[in-house]
């Protein structure tokens, strides 16, 4: 009897030990057993939710597969053995049906506890000038496609998927557009309006949270906020990479996206430089065109 109890204890201890070992080194195990995270609070919340389901799943896995294997080996046919002619057991069957319901009810509750922190953008940690904000108030919860706006400053970038490149439109008068690389200030809550011009794409940077499909004719919503301490000591920026997650044609595999986080001052400098570069480029093009037309008209005179 004590042997049976020991065995049962061992069976119970096994998943617990595994969980403990896994939780002890979450960073090392990211990717092998757990999703990527660390670039944004919503990614971290998804990670937490995943770990909770993972622990539960581990118990279900060990329980069900263990019993199945046990039955296969323990009741292997021997000469002279007779199978018990049982047709069913109503109490047992009702029991495991309810049991399954209860487990799923648990996961449902978990999910809805975590959901707001994943779906609703958190307010920025800094203001427009890069000063730290202290008072934090979460936004109101509304539908996923119509996400809430947190109090305080935010930055909205329009993401547009095109075969096979991502285009970003920055807020402000300058109508600044960049491709592939999105540059944002760390600590600022970035709201994304995601759409596509041609076929369906899917915007995804694993460390910054879930993905959202870019569907032509629709605007999908997503957000992230890179923690200010994500920039390594002595460096100016932090880079997160990802790639398109929905089959969008022959070059789907090469449709990359990068998010580069900078401190507010560096971001402002980058932004100003970029706008200046574009203006110079535009004037250069205009001058060249002018020259060309002049040359052409001179040529016509001859």
């Amino acid at each position, binding site marked *: 009897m004590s042997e049976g109890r020991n065995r049962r204890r061992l069976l119970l201890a096994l998943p617990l030990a595994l969980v403990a070992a896994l939780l002890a080194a979450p960073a090392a195990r990211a990717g092998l057993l757990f999703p990527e995270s660390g670039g944004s609070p919503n990614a971290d919340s*998804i990670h937490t939710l995943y770990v909770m389901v993972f622990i539960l799943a581990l118990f279900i896995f060990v329980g069900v597969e263990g019993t199945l294997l046990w039955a296969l080996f323990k009741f292997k046919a021997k000469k002279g053995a007779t199978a018990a002619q049982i047709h069913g057991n109503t109490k047992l069957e009702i029991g495991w049906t309810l049991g399954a319901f209860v487990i799923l009810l648990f996961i449902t509750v978990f999910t809805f506890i975590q959901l707001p922190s994943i779906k609703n953008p958190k307010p920025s940690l800094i203001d427009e000038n890069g000063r730290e904000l202290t008072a934090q108030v979460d936004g109101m919860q509304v539908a996923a496609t119509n996400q809430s706006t947190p109090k305080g400053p935010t930055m909205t970038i329009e993401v547009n998927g095109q075969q096979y490149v991502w285009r970003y439109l920055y807020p402000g008068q300058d109508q600044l557009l960049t491709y592939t690389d999105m540059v944002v200030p760390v600590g600022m809550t970035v709201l994304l309006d995601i759409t596509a011009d041609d076929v369906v794409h899917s915007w995804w940077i694993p460390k910054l949270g879930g993905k959202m499909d870019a569907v032509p004719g629709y605007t999908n919503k997503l957000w992230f906020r890179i923690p200010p301490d994500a920039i390594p000591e002595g460096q100016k920026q932090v880079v997160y990479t990802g790639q398109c997650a929905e089959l969008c044609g022959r070059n789907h595999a090469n449709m990359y996206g990068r998010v580069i986080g900078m401190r507010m001052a560096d971001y402002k400098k980058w932004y100003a430089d970029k706008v200046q570069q574009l203006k110079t480029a535009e004037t250069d093009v205009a001058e060249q065109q002018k020259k060309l037309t002049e040359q052409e008209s001179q040529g016509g005179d001859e």
Partner: protein
Amino acid sequence: MGRPQIIASAVDNPDRTRGWTSWITTTDHKKIGIMYLATVLVFFILGGVEALLIRTQLAVPDNTLLTPERYNQILTMHGTTMVFLVVVPVWAGFANYLLPLMLGARDVAFPRLNAWSYWMYLFGGIALYASMLYSPPEAGWFSYVPLSLKQYSGTNGQEAWIYMVHLTGLSSIIGAINFIATIHNMRAPGMGWGRMPLFVWTILIYAYLVIVALTSLAATVTMLLLDRNFGTGFFDPAQGGSALLWQHLFWFFGHPEVYILVLPAFGVFSEILPVFARKPIFGYKAIAAATVGIAFLGMLVWAHHMFATPMSTTVLAFFMLMSFVIAVPTGVKIFNWIATLWRGTVEWTTALLYCVGGIATFTMGGITGIFLAVFPIDWQLTDTYFVVAHFHYTAFGASAFAMIAALYFWWPKMTGRMLSEKLGKVGFALMFIGFHTTFLIQHSAGLSGMPRRIYEYSETSWTWYNFVSTIGAFMIALSVAVTVVGVVWSLKRGAIAGPDPWKANTLEWFTPSPPPENNFDVVPRVRSVEPMKDIRREIEQRTNAEQRYRSGQPMLH
């Protein structure tokens, strides 16, 4: 010699049943069933070769074996082949062969329509593969718009795909009507709903699902055909159409389709486990009810394939909850199978091992399904290799394992010869280890951020996952080769099976192996779910001769 053989008939008319013309002109459900299964084997090997090409391309980073165009064509052909030309028709094949025999009927309700179903399936498959000669479709087996519209997929491969869906869809729908008519009207005397074999139950529900799901798909692909060639613009946002409409319509077919693939596999598990555990199935009514429940709920979970599309939280929450609810009847079935083995005398035949291996694998697919049903987690995991792993655990774990279990179990009935158990066990070990080597590690690839459907990658942290996965894929291929060798060997040299080599429970074992064209000269009255047990007992009593085999005890050859 003194013991009487338990068979219904041995009369045969050799003139009508031999030669190749007897095959192409036949309306016999058994011959049609065998033609289905032979065709499925061909497509299974083609789809498998495509899978090997995909895995070889991804084995190492920056591989240049396949061009992006070729890769997209191969991934489209692999998915389309396995779904439309293998796992749906394989159950049409087994159902064709077994349904009338299990019901105690002489054929299906509409034998000529049945032949037509087969030929439409064959020509649907040929239509798709004919596109190999010019330009195969390359928009994926799901053919999402706008990618599958003329502007982005200009070649006629997409039309071949649509034509194939129409032909095989009609084939499945007509076949389903035939099965439903047969099951409702042609059961042996005494075989009430509560005495029908569980495989027949799952085929009945499969047939109803086929009618709901494939009619919807036929309409959907017709809209795509019109959009591509007649300027209708149902799905083109530029013309006021909706790109999401396709996804809703497609998955309204696509998720019931998942259950079309696995419910008959569940039926196979429910037939084979009790035979080799030498126990009645545990909770017959619960399993039949769970089948109906899964089918109904299966029609209410389609949008969980679309959690990352623009949708309101209410929709997300509804489809998450429905996906959870469907886990309950599925769990009930798994518990019932385990309880069937419990306190039995389990004979480790190849068929039983494939069943238990299939259940173990499917259970893991069910567990990863819980992760994907939680939509915030799905936002992180959808469209990655985690999903590829998940659905191969469910579809391959249930359907393919059950398919091979069914082959080993019913082959003696179909051919009169046994398959080699030794080769069978080698094949099973290769398949089980190969499968888990291929797909377990793909979860990690997905968790590390590897998206699906990419023809190459440069991220070296994914190399190890992909390399291991490729090795596993070749083990699966080796296992299939072993099975094929076993099949060919058995046709010539397999041990003679006799009418009832397993001492099984259902009526097909009452006929000689292979059964004569009319199946039964006399149809017995059915008194329980296990009519063969009753018949054996009755003969024992009538003849007073003790049978070699005793119910409830292992056979131990």
